């Protein structure tokens, strides 16, 4: 059975509406822009190089806290309010609910990413010999990383009816993905390749250098798919409680 676009769009619009009728979306966008801007600018003029690698190093760190915060309520809030019973008894598949909510969370992250484009404009104004291709792949990498972290945070949100717990679980998993390749000396050397391949940073660093490899794209796509699938299964499992 194909995805029901009408239902996905309805859920997507509902979540975006809820982001923008509360201060959440505005606070996120403003603080995200300020934090990235501050850390980018203090280094950019020091290093004195015409590229955006500084930004591509900062955003993943900022993501670690912001994305679990944005997505923590997507499902857990429905559980605590009891509205999960409303959407679960409507003629809509759990998979479509998950995809709709995911796209809403992901869109807000992409919007946050758009706020950092101001630095690209600065770069174009003051820099010379800019590698626009590397900027593009770097942004693509950040977008995909945001997609992975949103999927992870949505999964965390489906595990509990408490938003704080969802936030902490989200950070824990996201941090694991982020740290994996930095802790290689703790694991047997035979495992190094696997652990490195599983870490997000390994794939991201390729892309922020301007290398576009299908292996990286497949990695991001499959991690997103994996987390959305288990989130769907968790929503479905309420029937068998």
């Amino acid at each position, binding site marked *: 059975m194909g995805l029901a676009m*009408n*239902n996905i769009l*309805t859920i997507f619009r*509902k979540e975006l*509406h*809820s982001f923008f*009728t*509360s201060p959440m979306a505005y606070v996120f966008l403003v603080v995200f822009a300020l934090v990235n801007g501050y850390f980018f600018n203090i280094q950019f003029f020091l290093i004195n190089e015409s590229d955006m690698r500084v930004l591509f190093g900062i955003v993943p760190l900022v993501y670690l806290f912001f994305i679990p915060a944005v997505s923590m309520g997507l499902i857990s809030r429905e559980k605590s*309010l*009891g*509205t999960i*019973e*409303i959407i*679960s*008894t*409507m*003629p*809509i*598949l759990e998979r479509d609910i998950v995809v709709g909510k995911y796209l809403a969370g992901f869109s807000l992250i992409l919007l946050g990413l758009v706020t950092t484009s101001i630095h690209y404009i600065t770069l174009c104004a003051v820099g010379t010999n800019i590698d626009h291709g590397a900027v593009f792949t770097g942004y693509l990498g950040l977008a995909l990383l945001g997609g992975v972290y949103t999927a992870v945070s949505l999964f965390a949100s489906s595990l509990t009816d408490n938003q704080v717990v969802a936030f902490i679980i989200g950070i824990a998993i996201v941090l694991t993905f982020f740290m994996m390749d930095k802790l290689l000396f703790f694991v047997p050397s035979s495992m190094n390749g696997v652990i490195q391949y599983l870490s997000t940073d390994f794939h991201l660093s390729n892309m922020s250098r301007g290398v576009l490899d299908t292996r990286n794209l497949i990695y991001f796509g499959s991690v997103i798919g994996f987390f959305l699938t288990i989130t769907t299964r968790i929503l479905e499992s*309420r*029937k*068998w*409680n």
Partner: protein
Amino acid sequence: MIRVDNLSKNYGSVEAVRSISFSLKDGEIVGFLGANGAGKSTTLKMITGYLSPTSGNVFVDEMDIITDCLEIQKMVGYLPELNPLYFEMKVHEYLKFHASIREIKGQEFSEALKRVVSECGLQGVVHRTVGNCSKGYKQRIGLAAAMIHDPKILILDEPVTGLDPNQIVEIRSLIKKLGKEKLVLMSSHILQEIQATVDRIIIIDNGKIVADGTSEELISSSQGMTQLDLEIMNAEENDIEDMKATIPQVNIKGISKEDNVFKVNLEYSSGSDPRAEIFNHAVSKSWILTEMSVTEKNLEDIFRNLTGQSNGVGHE
């Protein structure tokens, strides 16, 4: 039409619903009555596809809740217990959200909105935020959302909990009106509510159905005691107490005296009406009977008998 077939649900080792069966016809208003924790909500959640049965099945128009869940959900409007709502939405946005999932759009939505707004009396609040509405309005918003697609079947879990008496009367008459063309299944733990609204009552206790029928059927089928109140003038208290010797089936519960009128409350087992004998006895003793009235046994007593409870259910 809804057919529930040997439906059971266990939560871990707790058996919430134990192999219940019943069937409901279109155009029937059915009340699902039971104490808190009797299994009412669990049963309704299985009929709406929120929970899956541990065993047994639910059929709606011969469709199976496990394999045809979405098709059934399209036909059903459901108001869950405690009426959860999205508080940040405006009332019309909330109704539009429901309509949109049910693919009611454009002109069709405007008409549906007009219909539910007038049926549920939401004229004053359509542009208000759901969270700012009063409890009575919230309940009606929940009901309007359940009705936006004009479903054949309405399932209402405790629809009048927390409403004031005027609102209860309004919701009651709305449900009665809806019940003329729809199948309405509502649950309640308040007897008066069920008795006043529904055609048929299903009483559930401890996960099992203990009674099923109209309120008259339930009253007449129950084997209990009937109360009789007498007012007697020109009598002596001792004589009245001695009445049991002549009319053995009565059981005198209380005698009180006001001026020279005795008020006597007695009971007898249903089916052994002693009123003729009491009259003859009064004549033979030269008493003047100024009142003799039977207090109908009510559903509440039946409910208590059936569910083995002496209190805990009833008024709220």
